């Protein structure tokens, strides 16, 4: 058995042994270990390489602040890069590999960067890769990209699932250390609905890592007792393995709960759940993070934070070294020596900076072996425990506007300014650095919250402990040291980089951060920010608070994108809307296209058809020569009712609607207030007070939104009510010369002769012996056509009954492509033409716009750009050479003119192959287009490589008089 550094004690389960792999080597651990504690137990010191210089990196801390020990966890598709070994809970079969090296971890080829470090200082990218410009894309960027980043992604789809959840509580307590536990106990006993969340898999915080006594018992045991009491309270929810990563508005907190990360297999359960917690109050009890000091070669494996050394010794029963030296500027560091000696570990030297002793350099290529002190002394040590004081975890207190404030007595920033409303801070997070005071503060703060929320006083008394001494001196940087001294271990930022960037003029901390990359990536400055600030202050001759602080933003620690996505991926990324005839279409060879979340049939392939064009041409011909049917349910339908319904619609549409008779349909043009065309459709008047408006598929939701705005905000006293009925009616377009014959078989007792039911008529009726329906005689194809609507639940039966009834007429289903061909043949505008820059004049509807009423868009119809003489106008285009297939997006030029903007005449918006005409046709916008029918122009498309001659014609390629639809 290995685990040569395992010692007695700790909160691990020694009755069970777990096997795990690091760099393909099998090792053992116990439940309760982290990957970091297990590696240390197995005397693995070198675990990774640094970002820039590829320096050897070991384990630096014991928590989520870890900057160095980043590994790739798991294998295959589940591989996760940049995972902090200090937060990975051990499980059977765990597999991790080191990252950021070429070749093996021990012999990293890119370690040569370390020798090049004089050239790789702050801002070297910006200075080095400036010129020649042509080198950037082909040479510099690929090289930088391949060298950048730490871990590598698997390149495969994430096999895990993630979920979202919502929780409500009176008070959310962030952190289950001494302050958080004391607060939870008081709040829970007072009857508040409490959520207690902690990022660790074991609650208790520093109580698990120290040797303090609380209420006369071992601190870790006291924590266990409190957790047991909280666990049986119905009003308390304990959430371990849960990081509260962000404080959002109005008491909302984001939390990530790791559900199965500690298991070998997630077993089809969500791996992580992203919670949104709604709270009335929040108690921030997030503790503090220890920081290092900057001294020569302070980045070697074996150099660790002193508090973390205590964590490994006390909580995990692991000796991070066998000859440990302590370097400190405060009393907390001395406690380390005490704890180590209690475990029988050799403490080779206590170096107290307050007494003038400092470390100036270290030695040991892949792990520390010697420490050099000032005045020429040296010490043998395989581990150096460093304590530069503690920084309160103020992060969530500054997620809104709070700017942390400096406190000289603890040489640290504490929460300050405007905290998120409802948040109070307790314990070390508030700068209360000793145990007894922390416990008392947690209790007191929670009691106050309870009183605030109307729960009369807690029955509990504050837990008691003795207060240790905490005295710290603001010593940050060993200036005697001539060697490189690291500030940010993750991003390889040294004291020299900071002083250099200051010299180069980066005076603001925010600039410093971005220029040097200090505090970037997963660590986010948790261990490095304060040190960087102190060195900056030193360079500028200012105090730390004068130099500034950086404000923290969410997330507190990294959150996987998958967790934010939750279930919204793949087919669940957004809803799938199926038309009522979907199943029938599927059975009949339809292929589908997505339109506004709808799946619409684009064509129905028949055996023997070689390409989509064969199907589309056949569908168009069959419709124009016989009868076709198309599901048009997706068009928006808005039911408009009320005594003022006509007046309301008249204010919405640009054309007149007030006098539309009952039983009639009218085309309506909808503008934006700036005069641009917004949407179009038909509106039918079913009765004096009842209209049905249709919109384009894409704008169905937006038009209803705008109509509600007009109804509630602009004309609030009109008696009118709106509801979307898009999904309520299955609607089919039946088009072609034989459509009357078909519809006459479908409707019950209704005379469909041209006299009785003319073009633009509408009525309610029944079909197939009693099914309620609405019939409209409208045409998008330009043929004699009807639209028939039945309640959506009859949609499937309707299409099957229609097809049966139409068999003798050879009724042909057609899809959106044939629909598109026919509307281009007919010269109807659609999305390609109504692109948000089109006004009514451009599409030939200028005269339709009313000049006798107010409506949305009425005031700004005549802006200079809209009335210019050479304005763009809708035209039809056909190729001179009839074999040419036209290209949408081509621009028009007069022959002989250069192809530039000054000579640009307009562009092609839509193209189609017209089976009726036997050649390609197009629609387009052309300057003074209506006066130029018959003119020949170049249609030039450099993107598609096309340059052809076209003839300008009417946009109505077929039946310009409209006889067919009126027939």
């Amino acid at each position, binding site marked *: 058995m290995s685990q040569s550094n395992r010692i007695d004690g700790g909160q691990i389960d020694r009755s069970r042994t777990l096997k795990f792999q690091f760099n393909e080597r099998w090792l053992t651990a116990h439940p309760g270990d982290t990957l970091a504690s297990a590696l240390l137990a197995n005397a693995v010191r070198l675990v990774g390489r640094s970002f820039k210089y590829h320096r050897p990196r070991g384990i630096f801390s014991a928590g989520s602040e870890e900057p160095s020990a980043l590994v790739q966890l798991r294998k295959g598709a589940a591989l996760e890069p940049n995972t902090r070994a200090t937060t990975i809970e051990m499980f059977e079969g765990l597999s991790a590999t080191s990252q950021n090296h070429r070749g093996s971890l021990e012999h990293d080829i890119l370690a040569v960067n370390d020798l090049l470090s004089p050239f790789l200082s702050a801002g070297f990218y910006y200075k080095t890769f400036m010129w020649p410009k042509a080198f950037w894309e082909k040479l510099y960027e690929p090289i930088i990209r391949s060298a950048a980043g730490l871990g590598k992604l698997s390149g495969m789809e994430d096999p895990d699932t993630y979920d979202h959840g919502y929780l409500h509580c009176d008070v959310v307590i962030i952190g289950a250390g001494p302050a958080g536990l004391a607060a939870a106990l008081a709040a829970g006993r007072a009857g508040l609905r409490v959520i207690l969340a902690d990022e660790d898999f074991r609650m208790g915080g520093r109580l698990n890592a120290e040797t303090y006594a609380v209420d006369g018992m071992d601190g870790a045991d006291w924590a266990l007792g409190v957790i047991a009491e909280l666990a049986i309270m119905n009003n308390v929810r304990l959430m371990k393995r849960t990081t509260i990563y962000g404080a959002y*508005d*109005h008491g909302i907190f984001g939390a990530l709960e790791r559900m199965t990360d500690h298991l070998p297999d997630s077993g089809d359960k969500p791996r992580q759940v992203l919670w949104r917690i709604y709270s009335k109050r929040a108690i921030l009890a997030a503790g503090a993070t220890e920081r290092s000091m900057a001294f020569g070669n302070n980045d070697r494996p074996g150099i660790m934070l002193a508090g973390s050394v205590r964590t490994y010794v006390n909580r995990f029963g692991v000796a991070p070294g066998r000859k440990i030296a302590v370097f400190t500027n405060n009393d907390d560091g001395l406690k380390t020596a005490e704890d180590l000696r209690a475990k029988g570990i050799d403490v080779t030297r206590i170096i107290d900076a307050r007494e003038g002793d400092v470390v100036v350099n270290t030695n040991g290529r892949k792990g520390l072996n010697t420490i050099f002190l000032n005045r020429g002394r040296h010490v043998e040590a395989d581990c150096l425990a460093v304590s530069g004081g503690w920084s309160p975890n103020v992060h969530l207190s500054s997620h809104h506007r709070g700017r942390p404030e400096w406190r000289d007595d603890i040489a640290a920033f504490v929460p300050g300014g405007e905290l998120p409303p409802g948040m109070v801070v307790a314990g070390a997070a508030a700068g209360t650095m000793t145990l007894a005071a922390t416990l008392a503060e947690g209790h007191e703060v929670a009691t106050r919250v309870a009183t605030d929320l109307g729960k009369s006083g807690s029955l509990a008394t504050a837990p008691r402990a003795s207060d240790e001494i905490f005295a710290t001196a603001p010593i940050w940087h060993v200036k005697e040291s001539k060697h490189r001294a690291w500030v940010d271990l993750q991003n390889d930022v040294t004291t020299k980089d900071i002083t250099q960037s200051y010299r180069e003029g980066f005076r603001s901390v925010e600039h410093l951060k971005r220029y040097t990359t200090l505090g970037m990536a997963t660590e986010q400055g948790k261990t490095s920010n304060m040190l960087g600030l102190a060195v900056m202050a030193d360079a500028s001759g200012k105090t730390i608070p004068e130099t500034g602080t950086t404000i923290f933003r969410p997330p507190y620690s990294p959150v996987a994108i998958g967790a934010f996505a939750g279930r919204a991926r793949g087919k669940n990324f957004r809803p799938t809307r199926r038309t009522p005839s979907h199943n029938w279409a599927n059975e009949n060879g339809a292929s589908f296209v997505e339109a506004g979340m709808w799946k619409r049939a684009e064509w129905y392939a028949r055996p023997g058809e070689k390409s989509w064009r064969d199907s589309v041409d056949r569908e168009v011909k069959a419709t124009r020569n016989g009868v076709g049917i198309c599901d048009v349910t997706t068009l928006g339908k808005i039911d408009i009712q009320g005594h003022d319904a006509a007046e309301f619609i008249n204010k919405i549409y640009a054309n007149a609607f007030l006098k539309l008779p009952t039983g009639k349909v009218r085309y309506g043009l909808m503008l934006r207030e700036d005069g641009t065309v917004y949407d179009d459709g038909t509106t039918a008047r079913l009765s004096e007070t009842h209209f049905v408006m249709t919109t384009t598929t894409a704008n169905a939701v937006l038009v209803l939104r705008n109509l*509600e705005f007009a109804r509630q905000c602009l004309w*609030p*006293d*009109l008696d009118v009510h709106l509801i979307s009925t898009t999904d309520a009616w299955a609607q089919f377009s039946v088009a072609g010369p034989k459509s009357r014959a078909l519809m006459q078989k479908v409707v019950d007792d209704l005379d469909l002769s041209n006299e009785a039911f003319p073009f633009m008529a509408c009525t309610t009726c029944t079909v197939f012996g009693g099914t309620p329906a609405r019939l409209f005689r409208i045409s998008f194809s330009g043929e004699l056509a009807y639209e028939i609507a039945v309640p959506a639940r009859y949609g499937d039966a309707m299409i099957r009954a229609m097809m049966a009834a139409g068999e003798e007429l050879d009724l042909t289903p057609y899809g959106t492509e044939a629909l598109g061909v026919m509307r281009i043949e007919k010269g109807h505008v659609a999305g390609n033409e109504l692109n948000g820059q089109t006004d009514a004049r451009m599409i030939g509807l200028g005269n339709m716009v009313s000049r006798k009423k107010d409506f949305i*868009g009425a005031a700004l119809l005549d802006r200079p750009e809209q009335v210019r003489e050479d304005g763009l106008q809708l035209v039809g285009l056909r190729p001179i050479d009839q074999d040419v297939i036209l290209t949408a997006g081509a621009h028009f030029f007069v022959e002989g003119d250069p192809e530039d903007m000054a000579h640009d005449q307009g562009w092609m918006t839509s193209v189609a192959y017209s089976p009726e005409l036997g050649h390609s046709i197009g629609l387009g916008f052309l300057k003074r287009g209506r006066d130029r029918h018959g003119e020949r122009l170049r249609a030039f498309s450099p993107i598609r490589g096309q340059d052809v001659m076209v003839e300008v014609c009417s946009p109505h390629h077929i039946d310009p008089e409209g006889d067919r639809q009126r027939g």
Partner: protein
Amino acid sequence: MIIKHPLLGPRDAAEFVYLGDANMIKRPEGFGENVEEAMYEHVYLRENPAGEHHELWYHEQGDRSWLVVTRNTLTHEISSVELARDVARRKGRSK
């Protein structure tokens, strides 16, 4: 954010669609002589204060009420929520 809907109580902001400055309620007359200038300002000029702002929110994933929400753009504190219809009537809008 949480918006206290006058009819439905506290609702998550995710249920709403944001439009912007509530001055859009004050639509000038669009028909008549010399209406362009006023409409131009209405369409293109918006209040965008750092501080208290009256803004329009639409409860699209709810009852489709338009609301006037008074929100501090610096702190996101919401000091009042009214039905836009009530505000519009108070400003003299009718038919």
